[in-house]
């Protein structure tokens, strides 16, 4: 396969993991975040530090990245206990700016110059480049997808959905809203950390500007485009928006205009996204007689 195509597919795979992780927070638990790239960055910087400065290898670097992002997500999710809806959105934007500023102004993290020289993943002495990395990324994406599907069948899945639907009613049936929010932030941010770790390993370098507000908006657009609160929606959103700039390079400069237009049109015409519960696409797929098409929780 062409190296360029493989590289594009690897980044799409990373976006898929990012979008799925944000979907846990936004789609299932109803906690809208426009700061998810902060945790993507924490994962990427963790891998950069533990591989370049501490010499840690795969899979321990990935585990560290997911753990650090998850723990930070738990702490930084604390505002979600105090604020809801639009105030939470503002709080998460603030978190994103703070984290990027920390990357930018911490000499140990390379400041504006970032950290370079991150080695590729090595498994059994073989460097995972090109197709090897593609397999690793999609292996993690499939594992994350399956874990998420399993999670939604547990009582924790009910906890997340219930607080999205009505926090007071959820409390009334014994669900601790605070604990559910914190754990969802932990899981979602650990997922973002995993994506960030793979990103750093693929790119070989990390810079503060790679994890800013624009990246957070991009991943949120993927989730909303595909269908928040559905299993496959964010995957589809990530494939479309992750691949689009690469294949339609002439719109590269207009990318964010297009993201904005997509969000605006979706809010007007297809609020639940392409694969939303009652979307046109889902209705169309339901007419196809074979196979189960319903994955909406």
């Amino acid at each position, binding site marked *: 396969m062409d190296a360029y195509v493989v590289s594009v597919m690897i980044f799409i795979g990373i976006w898929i993991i990012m979008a799925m992780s944000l979907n846990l927070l936004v789609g299932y638990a109803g906690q809208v975040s426009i700061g998810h790239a902060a945790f993507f960055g924490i994962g990427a910087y963790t891998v950069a530090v533990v591989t370049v400065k501490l010499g840690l290898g795969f899979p321990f670097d990935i585990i560290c990245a997911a753990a650090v992002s998850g723990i930070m997500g738990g702490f930084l999710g604390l505002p979600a206990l105090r604020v809801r809806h639009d105030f939470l959105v503002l709080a998460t934007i603030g978190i994103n700016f703070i984290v990027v500023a920390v990357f930018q102004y911490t000499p140990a993290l390379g400041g504006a110059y970032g950290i370079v020289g991150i080695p590729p993943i090595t498994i059994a002495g073989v460097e995972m480049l090109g197709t090897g990395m593609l397999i690793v990324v999609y292996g993690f994406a499939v594992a994350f997808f399956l874990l998420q599907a399993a*999670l939604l*069948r*547990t*009582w*924790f*899945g*009910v*906890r997340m*959905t*219930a607080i999205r*639907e*009505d926090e*007071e*009613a*959820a*409390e*009334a*049936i*014994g*669900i*601790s*809203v605070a*604990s559910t929010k914190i*754990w969802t932030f932990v899981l979602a941010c650990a997922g973002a950390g995993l994506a960030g770790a793979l990103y750093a390993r693929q790119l070989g370098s990390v810079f503060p500007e790679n994890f800013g507000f624009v990246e957070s908006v991009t991943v949120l657009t993927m989730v909303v485009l595909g269908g928040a*609160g559905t299993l496959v929606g964010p995957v589809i959103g990530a494939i479309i928006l992750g691949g689009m700039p690469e294949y339609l390079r002439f719109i590269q400069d207009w990318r964010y205009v297009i993201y904005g237009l997509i969000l605006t049109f979706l809010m007007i015409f297809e609020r639940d996204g392409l694969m939303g*519960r009652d979307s046109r696409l889902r209705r169309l797929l339901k007419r196809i007689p074979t196979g189960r098409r319903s994955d909406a929780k």
Partner: protein
Amino acid sequence: MTGNLLDVRTLSRNFGGLKALDQVNLRLERGEILGLIGPNGAGKSTLFNCLAGNLRPTAGTVAFNGHDVTRMRASQRARLGIARTFQLGKVFPSMTVRENVLTGLGVARYGSFWRSVTGLVKGADHMDRAAEILRQFELEDQAAVPVTDLPMGFQRRVEAARAIATNPRLLLLDEPAAGLTHGEAERFADMVRGVRASGVTVIVIEHNMRFAMQLAERLYVLVQGRIIAEGPPDAVRQDPGVISAYLG
């Protein structure tokens, strides 16, 4: 420790300068249906919120089944056995009727993260129990229907069914007859009696006096945050204080 299921002592709740509840004392015996009546703004829902844990009282104590629950959150009280419905109705709108009821069955698993991530929702025992509760509330034909497709009367039943799924000792019903036709209210009252017969103690807040008088065995009358009368419906109906303050 007390023989009463619920013991409320000198409970007060202020909102700024407004005394929504003022030194309320209330006791509830096991197995009874207690009515709480009063005009609009009397403090009925505030009292319910203090009992269920949605509001912290300014002063006073709430003891449930011998435990002081005054400082406990609503979710902790629910896990101890206090279930409730809401005045304006709070079903989970994106779920079907069956899914709404199933959510209540997880109450024992909601205490810790690890317990909740290791239990599957649709186990056979849960499905059987959900089916049993749906039958009890005459909802079996609507089990797979999205709950928001149902009229208000059915949604009230779904909410009560979800509360019963938590296996409570005490059920708090906040104006369950609001928005129901006379016939629907009668059927709902029969279901509440069925709940009591299964060993659950019930408190009903009701604005609909006829419904409350028919259903409750004992009534408390709340006016401007204070209990002004207590006793069997017939006695309360003839209480001069109640007549002047509430019934007119």
